[in-house]
């Protein structure tokens, strides 16, 4: 192997002599691909301003003649062009080419059915995120690596434990249904397609295996996937080997995470009640901290009385409960190939220790991807195995952290097994059933375990019958097996702090078989090109889950349902869903600058009744490359590329899960009691006549590249209208049922998406790129259930759906206010729908106490309508710094931590104005005069005590704040070892080291003292709970070596 020299290298050394020499000289060298060091064939090398050019050969070699001072241009489709000036003594120029995902002209996207298409002919938005960008933050779950990188794609992390879950929506909400389908996918989540096969989930995919993710936005681009593609699709292409020398690469990423951003707590008053200290109280209603030593808890069995310093320590003691989480990822891959076949083999191991002691998650991934050509038959196949073992403690241990007095000492209770520890449940003063049991006891005794194994793979056979006709058969299997165990270890004390031993052993099996047969026809007629795809799809989904449980275990050391008294619990459920489809796509191109695509698909699904189970839906899209078609634009050198596109389609969707057409009965309320059976019907009124719902979408956009594609812009306007939704509509319970399945409900989305990306500096050794993406979505609920005149429905806690408002909206109890003429949507007294984002002064009664309003108010939406991602990349020689910022605004959030902090007196508000009788006048309060006018209030509140603040905590608007934020989501600093260091040896081709961090800082709305608005409790919107652990930030290092 030649000693490789980076082009910088040669320039630096030889620039001085550049002017000295003249005349043609032979130049030779090799072209490599950056990132893997593989030689690149077919790169065009030309001498700027001349007709001299050549193409690199199979081993990346080239040779041509040039004069000193002339500039060589290296160009290859999809790569950033490189320019090198020939200098004196130059005879060898080696160049590394970098993949350019931003060059619009020649971008190839992975279209529907996994078929690659030039972006230019696609009449809908598609964005490609490459491996490097995806892995900038070294996330374990690839979906988190996409966060804020694609306009209109919103990703939220929820339950941020060792294995956080993800909420993902593309271009807003289309379905009012939130119930997951048989595959576990939320009705509003996009479709995941890995190498052409739709899979239910990609959270467990090894992100390092991903070559690129093409985001096909909206229903338009994914029309061929029909029902499933109604929310757009993430087309994941995994890596394949390349012809040539084998490549081995290894990487390690080790990061450390810490809890941050707990809600503020007061540090003035300690434990007790009514202003008096109480050694056995956990509520902060005692006297003010005074720095004395005080008895704490009851006297221990050995006769000692624990004592605690009655002072708020300088550090936030609540953080003592949390440890530094550790996340170690090791990744190894081999790839290579010859003329007929390629292979890619990878293994990954991820080990995670959570910020809660003893929380663990281990994941192992193995992947084998291969291709082989047999004459006219091209085959590709892959198999992926994942094992994920999780062992965590469910919510509980950290719940007490929001309630404990500021001086609470976690170290005192850590040793809970010691009978003379204050933390031993025989000594601990917190009653059974309370949230505040000893957290270390909960961690040791309440566990949720899961051992999940996923095997999925595919075989792809593509036979070329003639130059214009080929057929593709693709079959995929996805199999998931999850063994779960939730257990509570029995513990009996001599006080009332007993814990019942319980166990639930479960197993969940899911299998999907997916098969596609696709016929492809291509033909050109003069200036016209045509392409026709005809396909057939068959799909089966099968799920079987069962569990056995015991609610009263006999012994603390045997966790098994057999060691119980009372009855064995548990059950089994078997679910099946099947579908068939026929689809087609016809593309008509004219002179490579105008394209028209027509699609159609018919689905047959098992979940609808046989009369309604077949449905057809069409789509049409067009794209026009103005920069090729119109001479004037073509001749404008500043404009490199200009494309206009538009599409319309109507996509059918069935969100019904199996067996929902008929009412089923089940045994509840303790039945069966011995021989006595007792069945009750489901309270959702079924409807056997349910039909598919349809989403109509329209999209128009413009894409352009300026200044040799240094500045790229993509803008789109999107409208979608989902009507006649399959909707579990609330009905008056006086009808007997709580809800009914109906085809009703309508949502519209008006969306603007903009992406701008530019190289501010672009030269050989310094590049600074900035990219911004922005999306605004105006989402309106047009109708819920018109037949029943349903005006609003509850979603979750204070999250509601109102006709005429954004979905979902925050609806809360509030104080009576004077509104100052600002009641924006004045309505009659009995109308429940008031809109008022906490405007106006609070009205107090004659005793100076604030009055609670009778009706709730709508504060606003819970999903931010404005999303912005900002990325920046500096590259200077071997250094690069990449940063990803994420901003979202325009919505509200609320927290259930606030009421309990009011109740137990840890909320800062409860201490802000002092405590006791007549302590303060409610800020900016007014009294209502007899004539209906308002005057400023001067009467202090009657008593700033527990009863008063507990009541304020129940006023829900006190728990809500604006959820606007801007955060530094990812930071990656890396250094590539220079070629000179690696010279003289044959082993290591490339090496880099780097620092990586996520969530490094956040700017929140000034009123937000609740937490990080991104972290959600379960699959909710804008809701923060004490059940979720606090947000965390991570920081660490990574190492990559290629052999």
């Amino acid at each position, binding site marked *: 192997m030649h000693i490789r020299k980076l082009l910088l290298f040669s320039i630096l050394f030889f620039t001085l002599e550049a002017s000295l020499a003249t005349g043609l000289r032979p130049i030779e060298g090799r072209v490599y691909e950056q990132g893997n060091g593989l030689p690149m064939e077919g790169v065009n090398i030309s001498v700027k301003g001349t007709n001299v050019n050549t193409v690199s050969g199979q081993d990346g070699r080239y040779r041509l003649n040039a004069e000193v001072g002339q500039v060589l241009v290296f160009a290859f489709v999809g790569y950033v062009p490189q320019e090198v000036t020939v200098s004196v003594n130059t005879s060898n120029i080696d160049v590394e080419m970098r993949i350019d995902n931003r060059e619009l002209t020649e971008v190839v996207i992975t279209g529907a059915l996994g078929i690659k298409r030039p972006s230019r002919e696609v009449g809908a938005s598609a964005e490609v995120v490459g491996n490097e960008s995806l892995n900038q933050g070294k996330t374990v779950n690839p979906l988190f690596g996409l966060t804020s990188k694609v306009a209109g794609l919103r990703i939220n992390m929820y339950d941020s434990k060792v294995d956080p879950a993800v909420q993902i929506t593309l271009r807003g909400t289309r379905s009012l249904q939130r119930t997951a389908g048989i595959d576990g996918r939320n009705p509003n989540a996009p479709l995941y397609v890995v190498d052409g096969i739709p899979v239910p989930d990609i959270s467990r995919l090894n992100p390092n295996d991903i070559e690129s993710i093409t985001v096909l936005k909206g229903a338009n681009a994914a029309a061929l996937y029909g029902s499933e593609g109604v929310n757009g699709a993430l087309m994941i292409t995994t890596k394949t080997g390349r012809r040539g020398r084998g490549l081995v690469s290894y990487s390690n990423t080790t990061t450390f995470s810490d809890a941050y951003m707990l809600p503020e707590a007061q540090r003035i008053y300690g434990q007790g*009640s009514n202003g008096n200290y109480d050694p056995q109280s956990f509520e902060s209603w005692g006297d003010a901290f005074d720095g004395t030593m005080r008895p704490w808890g009851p006297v221990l069995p050995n006769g000692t009385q624990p004592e605690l310093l009655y002072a708020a320590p300088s550090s936030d003691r609540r953080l003592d409960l949390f440890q530094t989480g550790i996340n170690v990822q090791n990744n190894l891959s081999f790839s290579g190939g010859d003329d007929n076949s390629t292979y890619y083999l990878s293994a990954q191991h991820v080990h995670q220790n959570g910020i809660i002691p003893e929380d663990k998650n281990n994941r192992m991934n193995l992947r084998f991807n291969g291709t082989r050509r047999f004459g006219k038959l091209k085959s590709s196949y892959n198999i992926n195995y994942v094992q994920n073992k999780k062992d965590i403690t469910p919510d509980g241990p950290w719940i007490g952290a929001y309630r404990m007095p500021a001086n609470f000492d976690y170290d005192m209770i850590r040793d809970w097994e010691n009978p003379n520890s204050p933390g031993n449940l025989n000594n601990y003063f917190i*009653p*059974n*059933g309370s949230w505040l049991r000893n957290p270390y006891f909960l961690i040791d005794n309440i566990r949720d375990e899961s051992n999940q194994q996923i095997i999925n793979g595919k075989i792809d056979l593509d036979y070329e019958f003639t130059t214009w006709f080929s057929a593709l058969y693709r079959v995929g299997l996805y199999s998931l097996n999850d063994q779960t165990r939730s257990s509570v270890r*029995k513990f009996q004390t001599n006080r*009332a702090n007993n814990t*019942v031993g319980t166990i639930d052993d479960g197993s969940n099996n899911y299998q999907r078989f997916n098969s596609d047969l696709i016929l492809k026809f291509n033909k050109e007629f003069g200036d016209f090109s045509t392409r026709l795809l005809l396909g057939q799809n068959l799909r089966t989904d099968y799920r079987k889950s069962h569990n056995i449980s015991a*609610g*009263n275990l006999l012994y603390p050391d045997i966790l098994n349902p057999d060691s119980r008294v*009372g*009855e064995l619990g548990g059950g089994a459920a078997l679910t*099946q*869903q*099947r579908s*068939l489809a026929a689809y087609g796509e016809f593309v008509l191109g004219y002179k490579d600058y105008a394209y028209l695509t027509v699609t159609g698909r018919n689905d047959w*699904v*098992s*979940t609808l009744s*046989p009369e309604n*189970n077949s449905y057809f839906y069409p789509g049409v899209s067009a794209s026009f490359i103005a920069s090729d078609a119109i001479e004037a634009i073509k001749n404008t050198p500043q404009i490199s590329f200009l494309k206009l596109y538009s599409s319309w389609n109507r996509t059918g969707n069935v969100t019904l899960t*199996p*067996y929902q057409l*008929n*009412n*089923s*009965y089940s045994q509840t309320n*303790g*039945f069966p*009691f011995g*021989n*006595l*059976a007792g069945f*009750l*019907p489901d309270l959702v009124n079924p409807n056997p006549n349910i039909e598919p719902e349809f989403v109509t979408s329209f999209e128009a956009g413009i894409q352009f590249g300026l200044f040799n594609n240094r500045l790229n812009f993509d803008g789109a306007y999107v409208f979608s209208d989902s009507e006649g939704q399959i909707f579990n509509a*609330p*009905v*008056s*319970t006086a*009808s*007997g*049922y*709580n809800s*009914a399945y109906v085809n009703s409900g309508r949502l519209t989305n008006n969306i603007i998406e903009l992406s701008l990306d530019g190289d501010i500096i672009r030269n050989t050794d310094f590049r600074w790129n900035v990219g911004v993406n922005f999306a605004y979505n105006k989402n309106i609920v047009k109708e819920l259930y018109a*037949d*029943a*005149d349903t005006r*609003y*429905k*509850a979603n979750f806690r204070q999250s509601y759906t109102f006709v005429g408002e954004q979905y979902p909206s925050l609806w809360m109890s509030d104080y009576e206010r004077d509104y100052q003429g600002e009641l924006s949507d004045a309505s009659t007294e*009995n109308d*429940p729908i008031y809109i008022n984002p906490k405007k106006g002064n609070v009205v107090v009664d004659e*005793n100076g*106490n604030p009055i*609670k309003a*009778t009706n709730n108010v709508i504060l606003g939406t819970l999903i931010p309508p404005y999303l912005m991602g900002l990325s920046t990349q500096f590259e200077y020689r071997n250094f690069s710094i990449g940063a990803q910022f994420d901003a979202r605004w325009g919505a509200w959030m609320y927290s259930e931590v606030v009421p309990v902090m009011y109740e137990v007196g840890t909320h800062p508000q409860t201490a802000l104005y002092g405590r006791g009788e007549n302590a303060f006048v409610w800020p900016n309060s007014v009294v209502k005069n007899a004539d209906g006018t308002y005057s400023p209030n001067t009467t202090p509140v*009657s008593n700033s*005590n527990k009863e*008063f603040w*507990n009541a304020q905590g*129940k006023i829900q608007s006190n728990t809500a704040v604006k959820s606007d934020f801007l955060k530094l989501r990812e930071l990656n600093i890396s250094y590539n070892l220079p070629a000179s260091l690696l010279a003289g040896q044959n082993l290591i081709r490339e090496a880099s080291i780097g620092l990586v961090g996520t969530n490094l800082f956040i700017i929140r709305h000034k009123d937000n003292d609740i937490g990080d608005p991104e972290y959600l409790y379960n699959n909710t919107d804008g809701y923060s709970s004490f059940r979720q652990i606090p947000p965390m930030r991570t920081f660490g290092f990574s190492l990559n070596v290629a052999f």
Partner: protein
Amino acid sequence: MRTIRYTVILLMIAVTSLSSCKKFLDVNENPNEPGAPTLPLAAKFPAALVSTVNQETLQLNQIGAFFGGYWGTNNQGSSSFFDLKTYNGPAIRNQRGGIPVWENGYNNILYFQLIKEEAIADGDAFYAGASKIMQGMLFLRLVDVYNNIPFDEAVKGTEFNAPRYEDGKAVYQKAVNLISEGINDVKSSPEIGVRADDILFKGNRTLWAKFGNTLKLRALIRQSQAGDQAYIESELSKIGQEGSGYLGTGDNAYVDPGYQNSAGKLNPFWENYYRNVQGDQVANHHIIRPTEYLIEQYLLRNDPRLEKLYVPVAGTYQGVLFGNPDAGNPEYDESNTSALRGPAESSGSPSGLFKRYNQPSVLLSSFESLFLQAEAAQRGWISGNAKNYYENAIQESFAYLQVPASEFAAYNGQAAVNFDNASNKIERIIEQKWLALNSISSMEAWNDFRRLGMPDFPGTAASGINGRPLRFMYPETERGTNGENVAAQGSDLMLQDRVWWDKD
């Protein structure tokens, strides 16, 4: 020729694949849960009864216990039941964290509606009649809580998505008629013997008739202040003509499905307010306490039931103030106030409300029936001696609470108890009814207070609240889905608007 052959082959393939396609998609039969046709009525009826009695002994009893002067909470529970303790109507009507009396009530009516429809189709008069009686009871309960409610258009599924409301009085009369129909149906059914699935009366048709009549008497007594004496008289005479009479001594409407000592299968009142499956105290047992007023009333009468009901603290019985105005006062701490007493506090023997994990659930007790008869006799509505009914009722209450029968004479001899000594006989009956129904059918305490203002227990002591709860506001689910009908009922407030039979 060849073309024809190919066409035929193609057609055959097409036809075969079409039919196999149909078969391929035919996987939508639920293999996990039965549908209505699979299940006999005997597999549905007990579940509907248990669901109804659960609402009666948990949700409704709890509301009644707080609004009827029985229960408060100690300091440790000052934040629990906050909406009930502060008469917070808007919060109670919430879907989340509210109290779904409406929803559970109509769901239960639906369960019996489906049984009734199937029984009528099968010609089974027993199930049809029993379902009508139960539906009547459930409609009456809903009027007591909300006043105007849907009746004719109720529980008809999507036929009436937004059912029309009817006047509370009209619903009362229709519900009473429904119970009358039910009694006739049950009596017209052939002798059915002992039925295990009738976990209320084991197939005893006479007890069903007595139960129906008692429900009707309760509905008529409720109207004592409403001023339509003619209606009351005519209904009483129908009950008289029917002839089965009312539940008397020993006749209890107890639902007994055979509770088991497994999590979720214990008697629900036991499991919710006393002990869990492992025998440990549950959260409610830690925090729920009698009011000071209630303790005073038992003490005033040297009532032997007091020691069966509560655990003494330092030799005395200590109650709390309903509404926790003084949440920091150690006097009202958990350890300084009297908890409900059960076997664990009575050397393992049954005590007061808690006897054993599998005790039956009380739908309507003999003593409530006897107090109703006492009041009706005192008002001259029915024949019989009011004093006898009154004394029998107290004796039945003693029996229920494990007070030895021998203690009755001394108790009854006291001036504060003896019927003859009372200047206001109705008040005396209501006082004793209130003491007897404590935590058992607490809803009746709130109903009697609204009707007669007796006994005069204090309202909430929470700050800044004036008035007493008179009804529930219509629930949020109903306002969102049936808004026009709700609005048509006019003012919808908890502390100002009365149900129709509540005249002052």
